[in-house]
């Protein structure tokens, strides 16, 4: 007869316990029954916020329903356990089931702590813990403009980011005199406050809320210092409260301030009942993190199988990205009182960087640390701390900004026994053997070792180890593009070029399977365009979202129109035309960050009409929708500027015209500045040019965006002809060898040999392909055609822009409101607003 284990709570830790026991219980000694109060099986709460950024509930699931079925785990969702009869060893559930157990595991987690402030029960007050909470927040946010978060801890700041992303003006209200009081010291807390306020989230410290005002729904918060804050909505994130109600009622020992008392075997005061995760109180401590919870789950699963195991506490090290900023802390965040330990601190409020390490008096051991602004050193430091490694003679080296290259500690320095993933207790040795046994992607490595599947904090270090090991093993990393092709983008490019294949159908028939998808189709569409340069709508089914309509889709399904304005230079007459067109079609108008003009709010059927007028006035497509050359920004240069040493405007215009329309793995941006003052910001571009007394300096592989990077100096004082030749070769080599959606900077840093290799190929023609690259580029330049001009003259292509194939009606579901005298998309609940414009 199998022994029956009941697990109450199917959260992250409850699930992990099931997973561990199933994996280890090879003799099938146990039958697992688990009760789950929520309407879905366990999901990844750590990444809950990604639910707002587009992850579906299913993507967050820890395991699919089938997993429970296949492994004989009896899962009851929507089923709350309401009492435990310890004498007869049964659990009773809300629906009246009475189920016997031999062993019971409490994994009831915790709930958000809601302080008993008067008015807290009002409509518009939420907590941030479950998927349902997020659904409620999202719905309420639609009618709210401002939101306050009560609590400036780790979860509060995460909630603040989410509230801001939902479009609300966001405030964080913290009782303590600093943010994240548990993880940061005063100086680090202050810096974090600065960073967060810079991102337009207001932070109020030392504030105790004494009342929440409003008739029925929240309208304001009132504080003990008699100030108040008007808000439409509140998210409470003031800490967690262990869910010990069931255990308490069953008479188990409960800590003074809550939590089910356990010993190092995770046993409660009943020898048949364990408690793990956030409901368990070990040594006076509730661990509000997944890693310790997983260790507890591991311990209990071992004990049940008669193995020796115990939980000896865990450290509270954390690394997070909060509101776009790295924050990490581990071990002692301050020198323990009376210890003679030392603190080394780098505090640079200007660069928004704070790094601190606490070291032993003899300077040999790392006791803890804090990183704000740049936590790239975290993985290495944590290894040193956990493995008690001996520090280098100048410990400050460990936290000095890595401007001069090498990180303080590489993957190679870490001993095999070191634990890399603390959530899943995976060592470097285990990771390396999994790679040796055939794991060839980070995804496979995660699936096989489970490392990186908890809080995710170890993934960067794991990736470094992966790369280093693969290289040691002499393996080329597989970069198959998707399930339809067993080839990388680079291979597909070569296949298309060498076979002369002109269509996706032929390519997938000969070299792939299935219908294709939104990964391979646009990639092949781009390759076909970079090779044969036909107007992209000739391959309409391959074009994704924006390319499919030669315009950028907006959140309400309307489109934007950006005509090309080479170098940002425009005559008054042309400017007037743009204004007139915008007026005629009632479009929203704005200057872009790329020195041109965006017209927004066009319905698909209007696009050809608008473009006809623009083209008649001499404009052409600006390819703002394509992975193609965007803009070449310019400054006024020697033509006007008293400092200019070359004619930067003319060069910018010529370059923009030369490369316009060329499709590439990702978008391409450029700029030309007339002197070293760099008004055109050329060093933030994929290729940027800066005038010198003697000619031009070429910089490559810079970008703004998500991971900004300054471009590297590639060639100095070259003349115009050489400059163009180098850029031709550079761009074509990029098109030929980069991965899909890889900007030039990522491409270059991944290239074996990096910048030097690139200089070798482009300047010294080390591969003997320079001539070929130039010829291929010349072909693209010669075959350029404005794709909008092509489209408006082709009735077949124009059909795609009609709202309905079977009627001449226009889509009347789009509505606008007026903001600062221009149209803007109506938010979903705004359509009845008195501001709503007549449908245009």
């Amino acid at each position, binding site marked *: 007869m199998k022994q029956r284990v009941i697990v109450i709570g199917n959260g992250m830790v409850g699930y992990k316990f099931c997973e561990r026991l199933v994996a280890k219980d090879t003799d099938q000694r146990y039958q697992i029954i688990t009760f789950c109060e929520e309407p879905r099986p366990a999901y990844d709460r750590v990444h809950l916020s990604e639910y707002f950024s587009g992850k579906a509930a*299913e993507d967050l699931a820890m395991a699919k329903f089938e997993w429970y079925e296949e492994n004989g785990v009896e899962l009851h969702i929507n089923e709350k356990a309401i009492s435990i009869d310890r004498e007869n060893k049964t659990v009773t559930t809300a629906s009246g089931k009475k189920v016997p157990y031999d062993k019971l595991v409490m994994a009831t987690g915790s709930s958000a702590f809601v302080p008993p402030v008067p008015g807290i029960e009002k409509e518009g007050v939420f907590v941030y813990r479950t998927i349902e909470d997020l659904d409620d927040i999202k719905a309420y946010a639609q009618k709210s403009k401002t939101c306050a978060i009560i609590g400036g801890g780790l979860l509060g700041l995460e909630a603040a980011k989410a509230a801001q992303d939902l479009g609300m003006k966001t405030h964080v209200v913290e009782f303590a005199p600093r943010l994240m009081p548990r993880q940061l010291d005063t100086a680090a807390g202050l810096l974090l406050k600065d960073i967060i306020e810079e991102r337009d989230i207001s932070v109020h410290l030392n504030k105790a809320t004494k009342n929440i005002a409003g008739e029925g729904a929240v309208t304001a918060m009132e504080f003990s210092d008699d100030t108040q804050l008007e808000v439409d909505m509140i998210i409470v994130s003031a800490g967690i409260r262990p869910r010990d109600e069931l255990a308490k009622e069953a008479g188990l020992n409960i800590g003074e301030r809550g939590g089910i008392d356990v010993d190092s075997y995770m046993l409660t005061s009943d020898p048949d009942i364990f408690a793990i995760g956030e409901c368990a109180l070990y040594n006076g401590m509730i661990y509000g993190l997944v890693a310790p919870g997983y260790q507890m789950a591991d311990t209990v699963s071992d004990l049940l199988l008669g193995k020796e195991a115990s939980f000896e506490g865990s450290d509270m090290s954390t690394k997070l990205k909060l509101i776009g900023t790295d924050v990490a802390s581990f071990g002692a965040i301050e020198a323990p009182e009376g210890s003679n330990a030392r603190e080394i601190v780098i505090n640079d409020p200007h660069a928004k960087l704070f790094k601190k390490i606490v070291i032993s008096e003899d300077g040999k051991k790392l006791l803890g640390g804090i990183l704000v602004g740049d936590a790239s050193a975290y993985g290495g430091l944590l290894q040193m701390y956990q493995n008690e490694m001996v520090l280098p003679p100048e410990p400050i080296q460990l936290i000095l900004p890595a401007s001069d290259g090498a990180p303080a500690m590489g993957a190679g320095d870490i001993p095999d026994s070191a634990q890399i993933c603390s959530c899943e207790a995976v060592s470097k040795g285990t990771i390396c053997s999994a790679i040796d046994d055939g794991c060839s992607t980070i995804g496979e490595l995660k699936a096989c070792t489970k490392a990186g599947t908890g809080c995710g904090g170890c993934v960067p270090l794991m990736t470094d180890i992966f790369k280093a090991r693969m290289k040691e093993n002499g393996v080329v990393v597989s970069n198959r593009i998707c399930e339809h092709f067993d080839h990388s983008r680079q291979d597909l490019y070569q296949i298309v070029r060498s076979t002369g294949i002109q269509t996706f159908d032929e390519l997938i028939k000969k070299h792939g399977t299935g219908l294709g998808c939104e990964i391979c189709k646009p990639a092949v569409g781009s390759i076909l365009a970079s090779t044969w340069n036909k107007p992209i709508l000739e391959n309409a089914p391959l074009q994704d979202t924006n390319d499919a309509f030669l315009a950028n889709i907006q959140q309400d399904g309307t489109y934007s129109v950006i005509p090309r304005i080479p170098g940002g230079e425009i005559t008054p007459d042309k400017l007037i035309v743009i204004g007139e067109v915008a007026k005629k079609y009632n479009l929203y108008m704005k200057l872009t960050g790329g020195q041109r003009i965006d017209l927004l709010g066009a319905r698909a059927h209007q696009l050809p009409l608008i473009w006809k007028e623009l083209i008649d006035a001499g404009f052409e497509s600006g390819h703002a929708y394509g992975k193609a050359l965007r803009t070449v920004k310019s400054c006024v240069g020697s033509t006007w500027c008293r400092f200019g040493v070359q004619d930067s405007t003319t060069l910018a215009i010529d370059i923009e015209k030369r490369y316009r329309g060329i499709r590439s793995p990702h978008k391409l941006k450029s700029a030309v500045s007339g002197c070293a003052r760099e008004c055109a910001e050329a060093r933030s571009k994929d290729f940027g040019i800066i005038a010198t007394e003697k000619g031009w300096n070429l910089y490559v592989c810079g970008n703004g965006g998500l991971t900004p990077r300054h471009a590297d100096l590639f060639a100095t004082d070259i003349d115009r002809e050489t400059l163009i030749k180098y850029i031709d070769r550079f761009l074509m080599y990029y098109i030929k060898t980069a991965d899909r959606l890889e900007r030039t900077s990522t491409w270059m840093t991944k290239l074996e040999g990096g910048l030097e290799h690139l200089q070798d190929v482009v300047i010294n023609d080390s591969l003997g392909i320079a001539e070929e690259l130039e010829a291929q580029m010349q072909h693209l330049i010669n075959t350029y055609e404005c794709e909008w001009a092509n489209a408006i003259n082709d009735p077949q292509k124009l059909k795609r822009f009609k709202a309905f194939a079977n009627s001449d009606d226009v889509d009347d579901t789009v509505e606008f409101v007026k903001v600062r005298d221009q149209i803007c998309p109506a938010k979903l609940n705004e359509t009845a607003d008195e501001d709503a414009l007549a449908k245009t």
Partner: protein
Amino acid sequence: MITESTWTCIGDCKDFPLNLGTCVKVNDLQIAVFNLPTDGKWYAVQNYNPINQRMVLSRGIVGDENGIPYVACPLHKHHYSLETGICLTDPNYSLQTFPIKEVEGKLMLSV
């Protein structure tokens, strides 16, 4: 041409290009029609994406995932099975699907 009373003719098959979605309007309902080179060949689902609440699905790119043909929302890439209407990226959502067939070169839709 109309053989059964519930079927509406929405045009000539040749006006619905292969591997693309096309929007039609029947009794004020926006319906996205897809022409794929699979066995069923024609698919019709609501044009409205219930997740972002926009009328956009006919403008999505089509593909298949483990053999299931789907449309990806052009705004946020939710995948919907064209056969069942179920959202493959979040099964809490699904689309209404409509019977569709070809009769002598005309496309017929039942709403």
